[in-house]
């Protein structure tokens, strides 16, 4: 049996790890919300600033899990952790910004263009953590817990020992992010089933 051993939820104003709020947005700060979260992590990873919000969301969710549970992810070899992410907006948030860069400002931005595909967040996570396993990014009309359950189990059955999964809902200021780690051999967590996936996502009534 597999278990969800750690999860991180990020909304527009809070960040929680395993249900406990770890950061609350400082409305007085000049920093953006995601920059506040990055500073809270106290990391030295300047590439973060080049990412779009979708990639930053995946990065922050996974880094907060790593911070809360530093031994979890390093215990696996580089091809044993699969990545499984989804949302309902694809890369629309960055698509809109890229469109504005050439339509309004007459200056198409290469650094925005490279993020006009949702699966780029998987590349950012793989580069950061040196993951060389399976990865998948899907787009659905709404949050799809069955997808995470079924595809997560397929990944675990076909060689992955753990799956870093997440729903990254990012569009024009809306933030509905949950990232969770599913482990095959660690019984210290929530059983990996539909109800617990919904619980980890934090918006159960929309599933």
């Amino acid at each position, binding site marked *: 049996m597999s278990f969800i051993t750690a999860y991180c939820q990020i909304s527009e104003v809070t960040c929680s790890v395993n249900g406990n709020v770890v950061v609350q947005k400082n409305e007085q700060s000049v920093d953006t919300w995601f*920059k506040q979260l990055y500073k809270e992590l106290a990391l030295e990873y*300047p590439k973060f*600033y*080049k990412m779009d919000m979708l990639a930053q969301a995946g990065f922050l969710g996974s880094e907060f899990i790593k911070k809360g549970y530093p031994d979890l992810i390093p215990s696996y070899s580089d091809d044993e952790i699969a990545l499984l992410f989804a949302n309902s907006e694809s890369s629309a948030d960055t698509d809109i910004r890229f469109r504005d860069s050439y339509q309004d400002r007459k*200056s*198409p*931005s*290469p*650094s925005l263009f*490279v993020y006009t595909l949702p699966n780029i967040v998987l590349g950012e996570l793989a580069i950061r953590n040196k993951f060389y396993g399976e990865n998948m990014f899907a787009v659905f009309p709404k949050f799809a817990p069955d997808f995470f359950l079924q595809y997560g189990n397929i990944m675990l059955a076909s060689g992955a020992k753990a799956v870093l999964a997440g729903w990254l809902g990012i569009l024009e200021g809306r933030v509905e992010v949950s990232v969770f780690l599913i482990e095959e051999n660690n019984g210290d967590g929530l059983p990996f089933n539909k109800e617990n996936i919904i619980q980890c996502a934090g918006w159960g009534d929309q599933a």
Partner: protein
Amino acid sequence: MESLKEDLKKHIIEQLNLEDLQVSDIDDDAPLFSADGVGLDSIDALELIVLMEKFYGIQVTNPDEGKEAFLTINTMADYIEKKRI
């Protein structure tokens, strides 16, 4: 020329999202694309080409010319001055 270099640094920081850098952090002769220097990558190189046209009206069409021009802030400023004449 000094004002041009300062403006260049400000544009680079803003356009390339180098948020953790200040103008004073970028030496005029620091290699832009080296890990020992500013550490820019290939996407940043494309952004520099866009920046040249957007702020200075210069189209970088020859890749070899661009490669030489984008070595440091000094070489970029010299390139801009040369193209402006």
